[in-house]
């Protein structure tokens, strides 16, 4: 079991630790409800050091990534980041990731912790035809996500200039004479920052943020309720090796004006049509729909839940589900919860209005 650079601080701050993607990570500190609310109304910080980082460098870096990844990167400027998918040749999703353009011929990819080995293998295989270097630098980077309406003011007080970053942009900054990379981005639907750096600078910033008393340390529990409420997918739940971007509504992150791995399969699937798609549901009776529960209409199984929560601090119960195409938005279905059939209505997945400051759309 691996530990992140922030492990000792988590224990001091009272974390309840769990195993996640082979790391010991905080599940919660105070409570998932308090942490969720702190991010929505003030500021919270998350240890995301378990995430993987790859550096892609060389003459063909852009050509290679445009071929290996789904999204169009031609117009991605230096110091900008973009969401993309890594697909296999059948169009199935191997991972979703963030692409940072560090320099003309140099990119940083940030991938899901549980997919580091799989992604590296796939990219390494594809790079043979290109003049490009691929390095897994996951162990060298720590990562803190600072999120919430107060994130900007709190961080600006420590690191001058971060408040000037537009959404989905980044730059290098120094803190205590150490370099870190900071982007205006996140996974909660709030304004906020993601701070990358070596173990020492990440520890100093995490500790300093805690000492401001304006930032609530948050665990993976609230990270999941927040991303879910904001309509953001999570690998292993909404998307996995058996789903394509068309069913999971991530088609807008595929650049059909270029060639990329999986494109042909996706075009064929578009022509044939999909049978199910990712959609939101709202429970109409008091209960909670959880991952794996089955959905019925007129006694027939029409789908299943991928994530569901009672939104912390409310009594609203929403879920994401894959449901057959013929069941339309606004229609009522039944979720089997233990021995009960509970009514629910199909709706969009935007359970929360995102508060991004400005710039390109990250996700639908």
């Amino acid at each position: 079991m691996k530990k992140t650079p922030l492990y000792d601080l988590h224990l001091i701050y009272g974390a309840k630790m769990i195993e996640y993607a082979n790391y010991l990570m905080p599940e919660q500190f105070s409570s998932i409800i308090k942490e969720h609310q702190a991010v929505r109304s003030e500021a919270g910080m998350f240890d995301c050091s378990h995430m993987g980082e790859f550096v892609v460098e060389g003459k063909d870096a852009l050509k290679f990534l445009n071929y290996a990844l789904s999204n169009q990167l031609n117009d991605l400027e230096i110091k900008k980041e973009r969401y993309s998918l890594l697909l296999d040749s059948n169009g199935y999703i191997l991972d979703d990731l963030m692409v940072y353009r560090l320099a003309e011929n140099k990119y940083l990819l940030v991938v899901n912790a549980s997919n580091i080995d799989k992604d590296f293998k796939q990219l390494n295989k594809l790079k043979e035809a290109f003049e490009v270097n691929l390095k897994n630098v996951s162990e060298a980077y720590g990562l803190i996500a600072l999120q919430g309406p107060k994130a900007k003011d709190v961080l600006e007080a420590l690191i001058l200039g971060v408040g000037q970053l537009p959404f989905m942009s980044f730059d290098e900054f120094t803190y205590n004479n150490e370099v870190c990379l900071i982007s205006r981005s996140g996974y909660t639907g709030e304004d906020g920052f993601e701070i990358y750096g070596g173990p020492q600078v990440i520890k100093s910033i995490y500790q300093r943020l805690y000492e401001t008393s304006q930032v609530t340390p948050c665990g993976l529990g609230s990270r999941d309720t927040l991303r879910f409420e904001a309509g953001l997918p999570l690998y292993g739940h909404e998307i996995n090796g058996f789903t394509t971007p068309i069913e999971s509504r991530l088609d807008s992150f595929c650049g059909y004006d270029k060639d990329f791995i999986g494109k042909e399969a996706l075009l064929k699937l578009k022509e044939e049509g999909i049978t199910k798609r990712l959609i939101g549901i709202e429970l109409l009776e008091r209960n909670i729909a959880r991952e794996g529960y089955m959905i019925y209409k007129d006694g027939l199984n029409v789908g299943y839940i991928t994530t569901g929560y009672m939104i912390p601090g409310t009594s609203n119960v929403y879920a994401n589900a894959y449901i057959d195409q013929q069941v339309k938005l606004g229609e009522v279905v039944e979720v089997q919860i233990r021995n009960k059939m509970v009514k629910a209505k199909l709706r969009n997945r935007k359970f929360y209005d995102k508060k991004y400051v400005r710039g390109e759309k990250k996700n639908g």
Partner: protein
Amino acid sequence: MAKVVEGLFYSKSHEWVKIEGNKAFVGISDYAQESLGAVVFVDLPSVGDSFSKDEVFGAVESVKAASDLLMPIKGKVTSVNEALLDQPELLNEDPYLNFILEVELEGAPDLSSLMDASTYLKESH
């Protein structure tokens, strides 16, 4: 350390049962509520439902997860604690005062596999 109350019988799945004549009250133990964390929803059965011993009769849920409730004793539900619908946190505040339901027993209660307070205290810590 989680509390236990004398005079109740406890199941391995952390429900308690209190027998009063041909009726019984059922709830969850202090250990159960502590392990769950903040309870945000209690899924209650309907009055009139019958359950056999160890049958799932509902669930207590935290933000993160649902835990099935298993019937510690065979019986027919005569009332449910409806206060838990609006205030599920009552189970965190006092899981012994705030029972989940009341059943009418059918015949002599089967107490095999249930533990008394001191045995349960040893088993659950």
